[in-house]
């Protein structure tokens, strides 16, 4: 039964034809468990774009073998489906690596399969801290919420902010952000004067913003998942005149996610955020990445941290296989991934040898209009940030 969907079949054939490969090299099958339908369909699209870009640069091959991506759609957070798909990918499609994993519950569920089957799983987005500790066969190339929140707290302290009020969405990542912020802010002598957790399905932020207006803290830090919540919050913020009232606003980069920034609009202007990748990052590697991206996909979709992580995940697999000399057995690949370090379009990245989690630079950026488009302009940074949740142990 030909049920699997081969994404790059034509590219593989073209690459094979072009290089005139005489040897029938066994294709390297990579399973991609992501979201291709529903409100988060963009995630899967970004992953595919990053992967396609990398493979195009490398002639459709990794470690000398043509790459076959087998896509499976979870339709959002669906751990039972994700687990089943991981199982099928390993048992039926015989993949050597599992990747994708945009939502944390999916990553946890797949991690368990990775352990059972001893197949490496590379996380391209899920940001819950404990994912890499839940299974020895999981390595993460994306980020953790705590990893990008902690520097923001430290930066705010550096700027002389002494008290802060936190607003987070009421789910696991929001709780992560709140925890990391409180810890880092208090550690630096700051005081968290109040906080609120907003329900995920929240139509209107006016009550919360009014509460903040009446409390009049020095600054507010917020964390919402990227998409529709940040613009809704920012709109009310501007409407109520909080800026004029002198309350400073800070957030993590989800609020100004590159793929939603244009739709978010002018309400995001001037917002200071912290994240690991900006489309406007100034480096030769990123400039080439963006140029190739536009050349291949046009300007309708802007590469965000999803696409970059997918690109980097492919790079990591290639580098790991180079170390293991083509051996795809789980233990060897995981060993090779540990301590890996290379240059990504976002900056320098490393995979921590102990936790198998990503170590990277976190930038402080400001949303500005450059050449008529809204972008995050980096102006400060924290080098080699590790996930604080695991550091504390």
């Amino acid at each position, binding site marked *: 039964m030909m049920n699997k969907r081969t994404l790059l079949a034509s590219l593989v054939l073209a690459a094979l034809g072009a290089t005139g490969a005489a040897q029938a090299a066994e294709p390297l099958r990579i399973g991609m468990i992501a979201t291709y*339908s529903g409100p988060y369909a963009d995630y899967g699209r970004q992953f595919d774009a990053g992967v396609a870009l990398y493979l195009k640069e490398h002639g459709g091959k990794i470690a000398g073998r043509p790459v076959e991506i087998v896509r499976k759609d979870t339709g959002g957070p669906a751990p039972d489906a994700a687990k089943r798909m991981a199982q099928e990918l390993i048992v039926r499609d015989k993949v050597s690596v599992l990747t994708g994993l945009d939502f944390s*519950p999916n990553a946890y569920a797949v991690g368990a399969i990775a352990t059972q089957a001893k197949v490496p799983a590379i996380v391209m987005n899920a940001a819950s801290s404990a994912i890499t500790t839940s299974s020895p066969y999981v390595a993460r190339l994306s980020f953790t919420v705590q990893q990008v929140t902690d520097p923001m707290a430290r930066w705010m302290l550096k700027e002389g902010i002494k008290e802060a009020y936190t607003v987070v969405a009421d789910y696991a990542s929001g709780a992560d952000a709140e925890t990391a912020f409180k810890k880092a802010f208090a550690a630096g002598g700051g005081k968290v004067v109040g906080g609120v957790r907003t329900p995920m399905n929240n139509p209107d932020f006016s009550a919360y913003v009014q509460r903040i207006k009446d409390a009049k803290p020095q600054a507010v830090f917020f964390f919402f998942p990227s998409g529709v919540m940040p613009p809704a919050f920012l709109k009310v913020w501007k409407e109520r005149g909080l800026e004029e009232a002198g309350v400073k606003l800070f957030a993590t980069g989800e609020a100004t996610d590159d793929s939603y920034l244009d739709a978010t609009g002018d309400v995001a202007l001037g917002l200071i955020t912290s994240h690991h990748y900006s489309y406007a990052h100034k480096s030769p590697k990123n400039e080439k990445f963006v140029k190739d991206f536009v050349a291949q996909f046009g300007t309708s979709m802007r590469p965000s941290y999803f696409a970059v992580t997918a690109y980097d995940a492919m790079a990591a697999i290639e580098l790991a296989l180079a170390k293991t000399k083509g051996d795809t057995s789980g233990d060897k690949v995981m060993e090779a991934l540990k301590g890996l370090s290379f240059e990504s379009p976002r900056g320098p990245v490393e995979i921590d040898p102990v936790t198998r989690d990503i170590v990277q630079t976190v930038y402080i950026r400001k949303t500005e209009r450059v050449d008529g488009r809204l972008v995050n302009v980096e102006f400060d940074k924290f080098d080699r940030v590790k996930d604080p949740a695991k550091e504390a142990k």
Partner: protein
Amino acid sequence: MKAAVKLSPRTVQAAEVAFWVALASCFFFLPDRLTLMSQILIFGLFAVSLDMALGYAGILTVGHAAFFGAGAYAAGLLAKHGWSEPISGLAAALCVCAALGYALSYLIVRGADLTRLMITIGVCVLLAELVNRLSGITGGTDGLQGMVVQPVLGLFDFDLFGKTAFVYTFVVVLAMFLLARLVLRSPFGLTLRGIHDSRKRMLAIGSPVEARLRMAYAISAALAGVAGALMAQTTQFVGIESISFNRSAEVLIILVLGGTGRLYGGMVGAIVYMLVHDWFADMNPEYWMFWLGIFLIAAVMLGRGGIMGALSRRFRTQEHAR
């Protein structure tokens, strides 16, 4: 209009046996799709439990995932905190959900259809929010991990191919289905039919309508809980989606697709829905919702009463009521 084909009771029974044998034979014929088949069976049981409340007792509810999720978390928390024997975990989930269902039934039997609908939705959403709030215990939106499920009967490990999970699920679902069948064909089941048809007349003949409805709801909740527990045990994970409104809506779609008020409606609906969904996830994921919508509209406009309804118009059993 073609005359309906008349089937003898023997034929119908043979068809039922054939149905279950065919499902069981997937073990041999579809060895690499066993996990999908297990999940189909689980959803089938869930839909049958909803049928008991909706199709037979006439309680319109879009909040049944409250019990599915409660059963899943019950089994999950037991497995996480030391009680890893699976069969007793199932039993515990059954008891918890029966109790929960009975307690909630006091709210459910009041008011008009619409009121009941909203109350069931409200309860489901509240329980989901509770799970989110108590994320220290339940894992919140990240899901419950760290479940340790011992091998079934001490012998059969939950393997990567899903073989043990399939057999375990099959046996439990068949057992629960037979239980439901027994209940629905008993005098109790007939009372439910009566209440569904005309509540006033049942009251008039002195039938304790509210008590019967409460019982039906509790049994339905218990079955849904077993389905949830099975899901938790076979995947060793409980996501917050199992108690969400979306899941309630999904199982309603599955049931209505298969046909309410008919014993096999839930099972048939689950098979069709999950297979089509899986096919779409491979072929054309971006447009799943669109085609599902078209499929649903077509199913309603072309065939009332779902798949089983359409079948029942073609085939008639010679005996009277079931």
